[in-house]
């Protein structure tokens, strides 16, 4: 309509930019976006805490500095000595939450990378070969998607036995279909695009086209998806270890497990639930905020 004509006229300078500039444009928009910046800040905080945990935490995660002060009815809360209070075994809650960041970051990153790698592989296979390969791959993806993610993660983790690696693999697997679909969609959309047709007509073979043209152009949505997946992976990992499927080693505290262990003391020692819970929220929220705004910055369809 006419209104959009007017807007189109004022926007025309921006619209006619090549893709490289669009990315620069997205970056510029992101740098001015308070939500994205807060998200980035939360992520940075989370990552730094994870890396420098031994420097930040006053106690080892399995040390019991307050062993003598604990009775079942009295678990001391936050104090100057123990910022987040003590847990039911007399361990310093602050140190454990700080160390927990390591597990959380590790599970999130590894699960996302594996899930992404698996999804990229399946998606590229389906998109590049099409036909029967596509049908088979997408049917597998459909079947995987027909099981609710948490349920599938539980099944896989149960199969592998409780532990950190089981959790990582389980979460990686449930995230494969998302990336597979994303990549396949990208490939199908780009297969008909002008530059791919140009490359084909110049006699470029399939592999160089896929590796040299299509994949690089699919990177932005994959990065967005990976950022969002990091958030869900952290939450899912916490959920699995909440259910007792994570590791049980007291030297490697996990936030989900800490929350599960605190269930009995919720009324008497709410700080034991509060701090690990907040830690999960901070980590997940950081990736969610950045991921959402990244998506909006890159894809105008989501911009509002």
């Amino acid at each position, binding site marked *: *309509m*006419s*209104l959009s*004509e007017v807007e189109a006229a*004022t926007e025309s300078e921006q619209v006619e930019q090549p893709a490289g500039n669009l990315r620069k444009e997205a970056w510029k928009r992101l740098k001015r976006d308070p939500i994205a910046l807060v998200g980035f800040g939360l992520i940075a905080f989370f990552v730094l805490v994870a890396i420098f945990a031994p420097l930040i935490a006053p106690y080892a995660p399995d040390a019991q500095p307050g062993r003598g002060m604990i009775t079942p009815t009295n678990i001391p809360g936050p104090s100057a000595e123990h910022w987040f209070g003590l847990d039911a075994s007399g361990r310093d809650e602050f140190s454990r939450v700080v160390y927990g960041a390591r597990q959380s970051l590790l599970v999130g990153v590894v699960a996302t990378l594996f899930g992404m790698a698996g999804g990229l592989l399946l998606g590229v296979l389906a998109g590049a070969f099409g036909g029967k390969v596509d049908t088979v791959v997408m049917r597998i993806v459909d079947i995987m998607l027909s099981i609710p993610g948490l349920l599938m993660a539980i099944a896989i983790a149960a199969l592998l036995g409780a532990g950190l690696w089981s959790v990582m693999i389980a979460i990686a697997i449930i995230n494969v279909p998302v990336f597979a679909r994303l990549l396949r969609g990208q490939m199908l959309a780009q297969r008909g695009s002008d530059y791919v047709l140009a490359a084909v007509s110049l006699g470029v073979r399939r592999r160089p086209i896929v590796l040299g043209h299509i994949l690089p152009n699919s990177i932005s949505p994959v990065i967005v998806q990976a950022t969002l997946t990091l958030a869900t992976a952290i939450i899912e990992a916490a959920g699995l270890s909440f259910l007792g499927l994570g590791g049980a080693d007291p030297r490697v505290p996990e936030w989900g497990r800490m929350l599960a262990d605190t269930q009995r003391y919720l009324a008497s020692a709410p700080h034991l639930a509060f701090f690990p819970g907040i830690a999960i929220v901070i980590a997940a929220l950081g990736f969610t905020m950045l991921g959402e705004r990244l998506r909006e910055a890159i894809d105008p369809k989501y911009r509002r």
Partner: protein
Amino acid sequence: MRVTDSEPLLRSEPLLDVRDLSVTFTRKGGPTVRAVDGVSFTVRPGETVGLVGESGSGKSVTSLAVMRLLPRRGVQVGGQVLFDGDDLLTLPRDRMRDIRGRDIAMVFQDPMSSLNPVVPIGIQVTEVLERHQDLKGETARAAAEELLFRVGIPDPRRRLKEYPHQLSGGMRQRALIAMALACKPRLLIADEPTTALDVTIQAQIIELLKELVQDTGASLVMITHDLGVVAGLCDTVHVMYSGRIVESAGRRELFGEPRHPYTGGLLASVPRLDAPRGAPLHPIPGSPTDVLSWHKGCAFAPRCPNRLDACIGGPPRLESLGDRSLRCLNPLEQNEEVPA
């Protein structure tokens, strides 16, 4: 008939009197755009008025401003729109709702997107009758059927139950026209009603509009970029460029003797069937985005073959020249050959 003999029309009071209308869009962080800039025109009862211009000239925004259909956010509307003596721009919102669809109706450009895809045609027609004429149930349905029949939709009873995607483009536009005419409005605004249609259908729709307007005695404001549409339909034509009217005249005067170089260019760029074989087309050089801001000079100057130095020295005024108004310092000579 009416189209040729304009004497009695001039004496009657105007039905619609647009005075110094301006519309400004402001976008957060973006530039301010004045899409309509001091536009004035009148429409008398029964008169057919054309608003002509390229896309971006402000003609559609003008019509939406008259209907008060522009978004409220980021839009400032100035001036007056007198309809039957009331200023539509200051009317309470509910009174404006009463007028819309009953006294002033509108037909839009794209009949596919202008119809709700998930609501049957019948409901989309009867809802106007229910709203303004208190018709209900079977009475409303029968009236809707009659309306569809009148706009030339065969088998209207069946069509009422169908959804927009089941109709052809021409049918959809006919259905939209039926909705617009449902309450016998005194003014019909048609915003590029044929642009989205096939060429053969375009002529049918124009013919239909002409017929219906003559039958009901409604006034018509036809908004188009197509001079061919105007030539067969309008009593008076206003040519708009970059938000302002640059030339207004009766149809015969305008087509016979275009004075503004832009009007001349528009006319010359229409492909003619009677032109000799192989004769070149004469598009207007440049594009509508090559505009000068009106307060610096004539917005058309960058593309104008008749440009003088004075044209970019200050804003040209809309001068009255007896049979027409013209906003140009160096108009085309009377009966001058249109420059190529």
